[in-house]
């Protein structure tokens, strides 16, 4: 069966420091991969998605970037964190073969920028 792992679970970082969040998927090949951010009291905002190695699409301009160095690895990064980057970050995967397959989420990373 497929599993998705996200780490770390929680992170406290000072403003201006770098960021690297990692997500890996097991048990499937060539998944679509997604990074969402969830701010307190708000819904999920799509940040990035990827349909293959090295292929990254950004949904909103921001201080963050994403990379997919391997088929089942998705990384969210920042060179210098802002206070507004605080939030709950969720990685998700989806089977690539059909539009109607659901997203499967990791357990998320709680990021606090101080």
């Amino acid at each position: 069966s497929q599993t998705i792992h996200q780490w770390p679970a929680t992170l406290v970082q000072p403003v201006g420091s770098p960021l690297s969040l990692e997500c890996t998927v097991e048990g499937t090949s060539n998944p679509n991969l997604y990074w969402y951010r969830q701010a307190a009291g708000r819904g999920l905002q799509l940040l990035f998605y990827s349909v293959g190695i090295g292929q990254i699409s950004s949904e909103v301009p921001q201080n963050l970037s994403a990379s997919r160095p391997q088929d089942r690895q998705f990384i969210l990064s920042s060179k210098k964190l802002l206070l507004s980057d605080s939030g709950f970050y969720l990685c998700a995967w989806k089977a690539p073969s059909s539009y109607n397959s659901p997203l499967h989420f990791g357990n998320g990373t709680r990021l606090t920028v101080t």
Partner: protein
Amino acid sequence: AQSVTQPDIHITVSEGASLELRCNYSYGATPYLFWYVQSPGQGLQLLLKYFSGDTLVQGIKGFEAEFKRSQSSFNLRKPSVHWSDAAEYFCAVGASDTGRRALTFGSGTRLQVQP
């Protein structure tokens, strides 16, 4: 572009009472609709999904949802709520005509269950 509205930010029900969470979507063609549940500090778990066919879909944990095209709605229901159902619920819509193949989520409804 598709969008989802969950009009109720917060709902409180008594344990054993029935539940209905509202979801309205905006999309030009037939949407793919989903309901997810999120416990505090956790990721989202899929409750149920609608693609086509029978407009009443059954999900896990005793939940069901009904797709009503005329009202652009996909409301989630449960006949008898349990204390463990307290969580945040998200409605989401997917579309077949966008290359990004991502889901658009509503802002969520937080459910409290009173003993």
